[in-house]
């Protein structure tokens, strides 16, 4: 099973840095007796997914803000709601960016290869019932 990560061919993995399956180049063979660190791969995939989410959510928030700021609604309640909108947007952005940074940092602290019997050689189990592609 080692070396057959579900992330190896995924776009989220390719956006990570220093991964075993580096972008465009041939996959380097693992040193003797070692296998790919699956935890590191998962951390990189999560960081990439968080950055993608951050960008897409920011765009969706931006489209709401544009219409709201374009004079859709004005008044006391509108001002209050505008504050809620800003806080919701900032809260999501902060959570996503923070988590992406955390995952990237954690991935950097991980070795690229681990012994075959290291717990990190096994891909972390995803939450049951939630498909990885989000669909």
């Amino acid at each position, binding site marked *: 099973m080692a070396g057959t990560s579900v992330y190896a061919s995924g776009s989220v993995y390719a956006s990570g840095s220093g991964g075993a399956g580096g972008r465009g180049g041939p996959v380097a063979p693992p040193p003797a007796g070692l296998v790919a660190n699956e935890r590191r791969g998962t951390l990189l995939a999560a960081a990439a997914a968080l950055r993608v989410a951050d960008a897409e959510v920011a765009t969706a928030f931006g489209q709401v803000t544009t219409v709201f700021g374009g004079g*859709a609604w004005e008044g006391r309640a509108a001002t209050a709601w505008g504050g809620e909108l800003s806080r919701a*947007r900032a809260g999501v952005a902060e959570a996503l960016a923070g988590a992406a940074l955390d995952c990237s940092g954690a991935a950097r602290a991980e070795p690229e290869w681990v012994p075959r019997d290291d717990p990190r050689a096994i891909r972390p189990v995803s939450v049951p019932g939630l498909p990885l592609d989000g669909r």
Partner: protein
Amino acid sequence: MPGPRERVVLDTTLIGTLVERLKALRDVLWRHARVIAALVAPLGRPGDPAAELRRAAAWADDAQRMLTRRLALVRASDEARDAATPDGRLAVVGTGGGTASGGRVALTLPPDPFGGDGDAARAAGTLLGVELAGAALRVSPDVATIAGAAARLGVGANDPDLVAGFVDAVGPDRLAAVLRLVGGVRGGGYVIEATARGPRVHASHGGPHTLVDAPSRRLPAETAAALTAALGAALATFSRAGRLTAGWLARFNAHGEAGAAETTLLGPLLGHGRYAPATLRLLGDALFAGTDVGGDHYRVRPAPLAGPGTGGDARDVGLFGGGPPAARATYAAALLRAIASEPALVARFATDHVEEILAGSRLAALPPPVQTGVPEQVASAWACLARRAGGPEARRADPAGAATFVARLGFAVHQYRAAHLDQTRRWDTSWLLPAGLRAAIGEVLGVWREEMYASVTGLLPAADALRDASGGALVTAWPAAASSDTAADTSGPWSTRLTGPIDGARIPAELWADLLGEALAAGGPLARALATDAALVAGRWEQDQWAATRGYRGDGRTAYPASPRALGRLRQSALFAFFGATLARTADQLTLRAELDAREDTRDTAKVIDELAAIVRAIKPADPVGTLTGLAVSVPVAGAAADLKPFGAPILSSDALAAIDSARIAVAALPGWQAAYVASATAVWLRRADDPIIPVEVTDAAGRRRRFTGDPRADGFITGPLDDFLDAAGRPLAPERTSPARRAAYLRWLASPALVANNDRLPILVSVLPQPAD
């Protein structure tokens, strides 16, 4: 706890967009929450970004629901502005006018007792519905509870969530039973049964006298009025939310049956709110389908209630058991007036039912002792419908529909007159239109006066789609494509499809003449108003013509065969000639009618003809301003003089007849002037090689100095292949076979200063209305 009244400024169109974008944001947040939860959770890192995404998604969902509710409340408040307190509606900012068509609105909203919580509002509505049904549907109605429920419903009647909860809780069948109680409608063949889930109504199937007819089952008038107003406003909100459909109406009966709508019960409610056009259309079509005016008596009967959700066999039954006869008339009048108040609906609706409106109105106007049974309020509502369908609001809100209505109205009047009137054979079997409808037609003509006179003085005949294959007589049946807004009949210059007010000028002159004749026959102030309209149009044309051709005399040495304003004067004369001819024909018809009837009201005819004669005397074809003065001064004097002779001989005065004759004689010289002008102008162009066109320089309305050479390309009338109306040899194409763009360019060229001023064979129409000696 409700807050204070809130001033809201919002753009209803943008709020709609905002709601859509919030839904999109919610979906994006949910999707990424699932992805990130799957990826991050197994890593055991601190923080929970997926939870933050879910929180934001829930916020976006709440926000879009809050805004949807707020938009509905604002719309309801705006729609109900007529019933609102004067300070309820502050202003409509910018264009668009109201929320129905989008636009920016400023309102002071009453406080929302539910603080924007739609679920809470719905729950409160449900509670209210259960309470009202329980209090009303019992042997002795609980008046105090009903009054309290009516008051609360009245306050929340604009809240779409509260109303939805209320109406769903009561249900259409029990609401019908409540409305019977409110209206004091006896009988109806239903019973009320107490069940564990509240009272239930169903048909009595011929059983013993039921409790619903017990004498104690009456509401005090005040309570009944308050509940009627509250239910009317609430159902209007329900209707605007798109819920008052054929499917709902199919269960709206106290028998608890499927497929029958006791629509008559809605009569008292319709005036208490603004119902959705779709609901009104549905009810209106069924109303006309069940109204028989084809014979000599007004009859109503059950009719199909067409629409989705009815299973195809729903009927508008009026009222089970019949009920008081006036109730149906009240319902019909209220419904027709509600439709008349919807500018975007009224024209198309009235177009589809114009034949019934006219036939019913003629029936209503039959003199005693004939008893046709047409309720006065219904006849009055028919006239209101016609007035609004061709009125200024409908013209703005539905330009194509309004133009089509006017054409269809003219066509129907024309067809009827052609079938029943023959002046040369002294034959008149027509039933007259009532004064109310004549007044409505007169008002419509005032709104469409520019188009009417543009049609009757146009250089090319209008709307040949309404003519038969020979191009001469009008067709005898309204072309099916003309009434459909989805028709593909857009090709060719004579398309039957009228796309807006400007197409009113394509309505044939014969139809305008018949409409004008009907209106003039009312005499009095209406006839004078129509003459004033004619003079106003002539005056504006004169002003426009002058403004567009200032300074044409140029260097003072060039002598043109004619003035470039000659065609304008010709059209002005033709306008007055058309008016005079229609007036003379109307007077002839009135005279014949009076002779054939030989009735006591001949004196009324003589008075109308006196008034028409006074109008003829006031008209000065070359002087629109003088005409206006004459109409304002001499016509009322003549009318007053006629009123001062109550015991005079009921015969037509020779003075009046002489004045009318002068109009008739003048008209005889007119036919064919348009063709004569087109032929002579075309000759000016075709002979340009050996008889050059003298260029004409004018200052146009915009203040620019322009030089017209007569060449349509050089003068800017032909700008490309799309509007090129000349064939390869440089001859104008036959206009009936060219496109509208080419035809329009051709007409502009024919009326251009160079072609008019170089035309030495202009038809002469000097003083078309010989002035009788003062």
